[in-house]
């Protein structure tokens, strides 16, 4: 009890600098015996204790950039450009810390029953950095650059569902989809979909509605932003200057943060983060289980893997806890053999977590009637520690009497030559925008990326029905069933979902965990301030 009270005081302090999520705070507060209402009030009070202050130069050191970066939203792929983009531009839709869509430049929306026809209201009184006032045509243009025959935008696929889009008035956009999708506003929150003025093409001198303007940009080295002076979001964009440094090496990032050369760093090393947590000058923000989903994926149409018992043996035979402890130093949560994370509102909380059970693995392997070794292809090219994970997997399978051959293949061209081709290989999946997108892209029959080749008509029907279901309770039930089907029958062994680990100087406020991405949804330049 004593221990909890101490933790709660610490959590209260963190809440004051908004470094802890409401969900985590409430859990802790209720463990000490507080009622939910009292805990909620306590959190709000602590959170309101600080109002943002203006000023200062905020220096971020981030991994995830390269000398080939560009501020053309059709080329974004990694953290540095996403964070840079969100300083200069605004998106159509933003997400709150729990992951629910809230209005950004599209202020509000409404769907007709069936979720096919949508009306979006464009926020009024917002100006671009060149003085132009935002209207519906800018929104249309900013969506149009990701559509059409010749675009190479990664967002092309998610926008293919738009059958018709037009401006009803300068402040309203009407979108008709080819089929209903209750999650459509979530889709419009994709980070590629930033808003630029109608007809804009000069990506080296970006014009946006964000809180900062670009001062200089050396790809792969540094970006500098200056405050625009006016911003339509109250209490946001508080720094005078923001510097974003590319620091690829995690040790270099850590050293720079410790010696005070930068105020924020992303993707800390799980192996050294414990040491940094004990440093009073630093504030480590951990977002549990929203990072990459690490999987070993079998193609269920391939001989051997078409046997459901074999797939169950693969799932029971992996020691998730051991991999998480030894490879990720405990900074990951076990996966439950599907790629939805527990931050998603539709995460199946009733399904028990699958654990390592060598007896069950041996039982199902025997029942499958198969014998002989199983070959797993893995590579540093899948993700950095994929080989380590595979070797631990081999060990735990051996205890169940199953021989797993781990074959290490070349990192170069891994995604071209191995993924979607080999019967059993290492794969990671990033977070998808919504439950619907997760299920459609990863497990849908029509998806090119259905890497387990698990194509089940009943599952597709369930996902389709859930997509247009506007009744939340019913929808939740359907998505629960979807997860159950994948975990029971699918070809994917999803064993871990990593935590995001950010480091901040303790004078940085507003560094909260976020359901979507690290660095407070890559918006820390906009959301943070100096104490």
């Amino acid at each position, binding site marked *: 009890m004593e221990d909890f009270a101490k933790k709660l005081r610490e959590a209260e302090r963190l809440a004051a600098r908004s470094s802890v999520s409401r969900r985590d705070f409430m859990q802790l507060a209720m463990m000490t015996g507080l009622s939910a209402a009292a805990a909620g009030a306590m959190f709000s009070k602590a959170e309101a204790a600080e109002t943002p202050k203006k000023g200062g130069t905020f220096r971020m*050191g981030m991994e995830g950039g*390269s*000398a*080939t*970066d*560009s501020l*053309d939203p059709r*080329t974004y*792929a990694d953290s540095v450009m996403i964070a840079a983009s969100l300083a200069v531009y605004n998106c159509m839709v933003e997400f709150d810390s729990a992951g629910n869509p809230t209005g950004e430049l599209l202020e509000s929306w409404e769907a007709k029953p069936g979720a096919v026809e949508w009306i979006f209201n464009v926020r009024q009184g917002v100006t671009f950095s060149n003085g132009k006032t935002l209207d519906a045509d800018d929104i249309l243009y900013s969506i149009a650059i990701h559509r059409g*025959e*010749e*675009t*190479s*935008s*990664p967002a*092309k*696929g998610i926008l293919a569902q738009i059958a018709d889009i037009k401006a009803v008035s300068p402040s309203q956009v009407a979108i008709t989809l080819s089929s209903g999708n209750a999650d459509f506003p979530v889709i419009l929150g994709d980070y590629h979909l930033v808003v630029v003025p109608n007809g804009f093409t000069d990506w*080296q001198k970006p014009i946006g509605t964000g809180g900062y303007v670009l001062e200089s940009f*050396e*790809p*792969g*080295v*540094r970006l500098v932003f200056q405050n625009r002076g006016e911003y339509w979001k109250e209490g946001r964009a508080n720094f005078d200057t923001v510097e974003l*440094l*590319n*620091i*690829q*090496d995690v*040790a*270099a990032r850590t*050293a*720079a943060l*410790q*010696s005070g*050369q*930068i105020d924020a760093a992303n993707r800390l090393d799980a192996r050294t983060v414990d040491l940094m947590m004990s440093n009073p000058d630093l504030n480590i923000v951990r977002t549990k289980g929203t990072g990459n989903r690490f999987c070993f994926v079998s193609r269920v149409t391939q001989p051997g893997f078409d046997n459901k018992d074999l797939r169950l043996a693969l799932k029971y035979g992996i020691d998730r806890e051991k991999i998480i402890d030894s490879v990720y130093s405990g900074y990951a949560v076990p996966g439950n053999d599907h790629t939805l994370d527990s931050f998603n509102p539709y995460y199946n909380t009733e399904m028990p977590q699958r654990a390592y059970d060598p007896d069950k693995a041996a039982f199902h392997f025997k029942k499958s009637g198969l014998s002989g070794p199983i070959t797993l292809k893995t590579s540093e090219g899948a993700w950095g520690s994929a080989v380590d994970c595979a070797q631990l997997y081999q060990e735990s399978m051996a205890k169940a009497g199953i021989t797993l051959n781990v074959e290490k293949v*070349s990192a*170069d*061209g891994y*995604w*071209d*030559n191995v*993924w979607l081709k080999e019967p059993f290989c290492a794969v990671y999946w990033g977070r998808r925008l919504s439950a619907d997108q997760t299920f459609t892209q990863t497990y849908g029959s029509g998806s*090119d*990326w259905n890497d387990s080749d698990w194509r089940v008509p009943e599952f597709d029907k369930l996902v389709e029905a859930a997509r247009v279901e506007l009744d939340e309770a019913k929808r939740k039930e359907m998505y629960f069933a979807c997860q159950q089907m994948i975990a029971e029958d699918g070809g994917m062994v999803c064993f871990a979902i990593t935590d995001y680990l950010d480091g901040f100087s303790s004078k940085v406020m507003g560094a909260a965990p976020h359901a979507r991405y690290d660095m407070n949804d890559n918006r820390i330049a906009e959301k943070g301030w100096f104490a």
Partner: protein
Amino acid sequence: MLRLIITRVFLGCLTLLVVTLLIFVATEILPGDVASAVLGQGATPDTLAAFRIELGLDRPAYVRYLEWLTNALQGDLGVAMTNKRDVIETLTPRLSNTLFLAGYAAAIAVPMAIVLGVLSAINEGKFIDRAANVLTLGAISVPEFFIAYILILVFATNLGWFPSLSTVYADMGLWDKIYVVALPAVTLTLLVMAHMLRMTRASVLAIMSQPYIEMAFLKGLPRRRVILRHALPNAAAPIISVVALNLAYLIVGVVVIEVVFVYPGVGQYMVDGVTKRDLPVIQACALVFGGAFVLLNTLADVLAILVNPRLRHPR
């Protein structure tokens, strides 16, 4: 002499041509292309095809190479395929950074290595000889990033004397640059010292046992004069070529140091280019690196002739 220089320059250009051809072929052989590297694993065949046509990758390889070559010969290295930035414009500041770091390290390492090398040769087997050998060989025996991290830990994190980030920008003053680049320059110094020091020591020692040196001593010349006037010029040729080799290494071989100290040099640019299969970028970097090697080696040969009396006046 002039003929030698002209021949070397001509051969150098030929080498560069072969290098670009080899690199082009190697990049073609690598699995994946710029389109799949840029668009990532989430690309659909549809967007890939569109991007390839946009970049002109649908044309045969030899056409693309010849086109690149014609433009390069006219001084146009093209634009990066990935972000459409002018390659020369991006490369120039990075090249000057690389040269700055290489020059900085060389300015410390070369005089120190030669002086210590000569001193060790004179004091063969004595304390200073052994100390210099042990220290420099020790430094070269551990991986470069290890030295870098040790220096960062001691001088940046614990003592706070120097910054751990050595990122330099265009608008930085010279003294600021010298200050922030101190740690990588020292790291590189430690890496290249041993080779030059050992070579200096060995060639001076070899000369010192020659009869004409003994003769000079017998004439009653002071030791200093014997070493500087009689021994060193004759020992210079191998020293110069080792120095040239190490200078070339300082320019082309420091990617790891660039990453650890976050230094915006050419090495990182080339690695990023290779990861994305961005051919104009890779070729431009290869030209720079190849050019550095050819230039420094030619310079070393010419200098070796100039300092050596016997080579200068061939009989």
